[in-house]
């Protein structure tokens, strides 16, 4: 099996061009690639379109942030395509001030749109959003007397994802609810960079138990920033 390159977070960030469509894993910060996000912020690049479940958590009182929130505060996005912005008041402020475009997508629809992009579907029909503002501008199809929205694929230029473990081939295993959108995004983007807590030799993972097959992953970054392989244990 072919080994994947293990790179540093700043090298990963250097591969993301200004204005890219960036998919970021995580659910309110749980399972987000925090080191890659910090490197992306430090890179100074911006004008990105974000595809993510949410804009994570920002508490103005304590200053506490999770996931992509520092990039929101740093105004790195031109547009965000997310299901939820309720835990980041700065996203709402920028939206109302006209500084940030926000496309709200129902969470299950977001998941299927990302999957459709990765799995070569031209779209999916969902009952979710029928009769709501989400219907606006979309084709409505009737199948066996029921109305569905046609939702289109949502591909990306870069996926920044987070996994618990990788082997040197790039097979990934996620941990608990830190899985969420990560495996979907790995299928849907031209360049896939996975931040992982541990890298094990090829053959060390049970082939029945791999969540993301190696062929979806381009580069590995170790969470603690070490540029070279070996276990993080």
């Amino acid at each position, binding site marked *: 099996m072919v080994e994947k390159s293990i790179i540093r977070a700043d090298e990963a960030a250097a591969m993301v061009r200004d204005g890219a469509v960036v998919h970021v894993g995580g659910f309110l910060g749980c399972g987000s690639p925090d080191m890659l996000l910090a490197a992306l912020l430090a890179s100074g690049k911006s004008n990105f379109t974000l595809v993510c479940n949410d804009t994570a958590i920002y508490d103005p009182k304590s200053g506490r942030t999770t996931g992509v929130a520092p990039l929101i505060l740093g105004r790195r996005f031109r547009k965000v395509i997310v299901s939820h912005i309720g835990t980041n008041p700065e996203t709402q402020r920028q939206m109302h001030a006209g500084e940030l475009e926000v496309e709200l997508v129902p969470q299950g629809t977001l998941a299927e749109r990302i999957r459709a992009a990765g799995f070569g579907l031209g779209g999916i029909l969902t009952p979710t959003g029928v009769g709501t503002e989400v219907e606006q501008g979309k084709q409505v199809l009737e199948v066996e007397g029921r109305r569905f929205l046609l939702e289109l694929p949502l591909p990306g230029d870069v996926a920044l994802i987070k996994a618990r473990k990788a082997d040197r081939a790039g097979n990934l295993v996620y941990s*608990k*609810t*830190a899985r*969420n959108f990560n495996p979907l995004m790995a299928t849907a983007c031209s360049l896939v960079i996975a931040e992982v807590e541990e890298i094990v030799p090829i053959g060390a993972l049970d082939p029945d138990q791999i969540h993301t097959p190696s062929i979806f992953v381009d580069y590995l970054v170790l969470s603690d920033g070490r540029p070279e392989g070996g276990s993080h244990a």
Partner: protein
Amino acid sequence: MPEYVENKEIIARHIARFFRTGHVVNLGIGLPTLVGNYVPPDVTVILQSENGLLGLGPAPAPGEEDKDLTNAGAQPVTLLPGGCFFDSATSFGIIRGGHVDFTVLGVLEVDQEGNLANYKIPGKMVPGMGGAMDLVAGSRHVIAATTHFEKSGASKLKRRCTLPLTAMHEVDYVVTDLGFFEVKEGRFVLNEYFDAYDPAWIIEHTDADIVVAPDCHRWEP
């Protein structure tokens, strides 16, 4: 005539009665989460959390939190034995595919057509729908759990929602701190009333069409 005092506990207690052993249930953030506290010990429901788990357990002991194990509100949780994890596409496959028996969620407004609004007050507060649109469209039974009145005193039960809808015609039951309503043929059907709020009082204070069920009665926890 009673004076209205908000009572979230009675809402949670009443909703817990819907569940039977084996039911798959999704409890929304806030008031719906309280429902979990009142499920009788002999009833084993399976709680789903849309961020990717089945078999949601109680909060961990302090110091036992796992950064990789949260609920849809980002709070640390635990997993019960026999539970499992999955990705977001599977999670919403479970939801959209009708494999969740009950979803319980809060509302800004709910109307007698079964429409529900809970994700957006235009120009003011726009949290986003998160998983709510899928949960309401996909679950077998949708229970709106809400205090009967806004702080302004207006009833949250409406003839017609005025806010952007989360879903159309999907709400089956509404449980407030006044009573238990079924949504049926474009009306709220009052089946049970709570505390001192009798049907006449409820009808008088609700800006919607309410029909009193023939066997309507007072319910006490």
